[in-house]
C-alpha cells in the first residue's frame, strides 16, 4: 500500500434516459476507473428508484463546451431573427388550421 492515498480515477459525466421516448439528460458526474465501472456506479448512484431505462457515461475531459465568454458570439445572432418564429407572421383569424 502506498503512503499517499490516491484518488485518481477520472471524472465521468452521466446521462440518464428517464423512459422510452425521452432524451438522455445530464444528471451529474462520478469517479470511476473506466467506462464499465462508470456505468455500474451510475446505475447505483443515479437510478436507485426507477429513474432511468438507459445510461450514457462520457469522460468529462472529452466534453467540448461553449463557454460563458463566447455566449454572445454563439447565441446573439439568433436573437434578431424573429422571422424564424411562427408568431412573426400575421394570418387572419378566419383562416383555419394554420
Amino acid at each position, binding site marked *: *500500500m502506498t503512503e499517499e*492515498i*490516491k484518488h*485518481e480515477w477520472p471524472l465521468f459525466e452521466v446521462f440518464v434516459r428517464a423512459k422510452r421516448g425521452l432524451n438522455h439528460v445530464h444528471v451529474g458526474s462520478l*469517479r470511476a476507473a*473506466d467506462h464499465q*465501472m462508470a456505468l455500474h456506479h451510475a446505475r*447505483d448512484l443515479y437510478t436507485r428508484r426507477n429513474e432511468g431505462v438507459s445510461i450514457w457515461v462520457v469522460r468529462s475531459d472529452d466534453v467540448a463546451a461553449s463557454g460563458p465568454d463566447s455566449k454572445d458570439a454563439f447565441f446573439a445572432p439568433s436573437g434578431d431573427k424573429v422571422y424564424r418564429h411562427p408568431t412573426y407572421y400575421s394570418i387572419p383569424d378566419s383562416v383555419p388550421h394554420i
Partner: protein
Amino acid sequence: MTDLGEKTFAETIAKDQRVEPRDWMPDGYRRTMIRQIAQHAHSEIIGMQPEGEWITRAPSLRRKAILLAKVQDEAGHGLYLYSAAETLGADRGDLTRRLIEGRQKYSSIFNYPTLTFADVGVIGWLVDGAAICNQVPLCRSSFGPYARAMIRICKEESFHQRQGYELLMTMMGGTQAQREMVQDAVNRWWWPSLMMFGPPDDRSPNSAQSMAWKIKRHTNDELRQRYVDMSVPQAEALGVTFPDPDLRWNADRGHWDFGAIDWSELQRIISGDGPCNALRISNRRRADSEGAWVREAAAAHAARRQEVKAQ
C-alpha cells in the same frame, strides 16, 4: 472581462437565475459554495455511521432492508454533493483528505451515539426532518449544480423521515419498555436537532452575505421555528413529549415558543469534544486507507485493459 463578469453575476442573482460552474463568480462566492457543499457532503458520508451500526442488529428483515436502502441513500447524497463541489474546481480526493485531517467540518449531529434501535427511528423523524427544513429552500440556492443536487436529495429524504416515523409508531404500539425507549431517544435527540440549524441569527456572521448571494434563503432562526412548529403536532400524534418545559403555543405569534438552547454544548462538539467525534473520523480514515488498494487495483486493471485494446 472581470467587470463584465461581475455585472453578469450581479444580474443573475438579482433576476433569481442560477449561477453555473463556468460563469464568472466572486472568489468569496466560490469559496463559500465549496465550503458549504463539502461540509454538506461530509455530513452525508459521516451520517452513514450512526445508523449503519444498526444494520446488523435490525429487528427484522424488513427493517434491515429499509435501513440498508437509507444508508445507501446517504452515500448517494454525499456523492451527488461531491460531484457538485467538483464543478467549482474542488477535487474529491482533496476534500476527503480535508475531512479526515479535521480541516473541514461535518454536521455536529452525527457526533452523538445511537444507543438503541429507537434512535434509528428518531434520527429519521427528527434529524432528517430538520435536514428537510434546511434543505427544501436550498433547492432554490443560486448555484445551479447545488440546487439540482438538493432537489434529488429532498425527494429521497422524504422516505427517510417517513420510515423513521413509521418505525416509532410501531414501537409505540408495542410494550411499555419499547415506548420508554422511544421517549428516551426523543429526549436525547431533541435539543441536538434544534442545534442543526446553526447559531442564532445575531451570532451567525456569514448569514447576511449568504442571503445576499441567495445561497441561503431563510435565516437559521426562521428555519428552526418552522421545524419546531412542524414537529410538535407530530410528537403529539406519536404520543411522546419534547424535553422542554418552556414549549408552549404562542397565539400572538402564531408559533410555538421554546426554551433557550445550550449553545456551549454545540461549541464543545464543534471544537471536537463530542461523544463520537474521534470515532467517526477514525472510521472514515480507516475506510479510506483500507480501500486504497482497491482503488489502485481498479486503476491498474483499467490501464491494462486500455493497453491490451491498443495492441
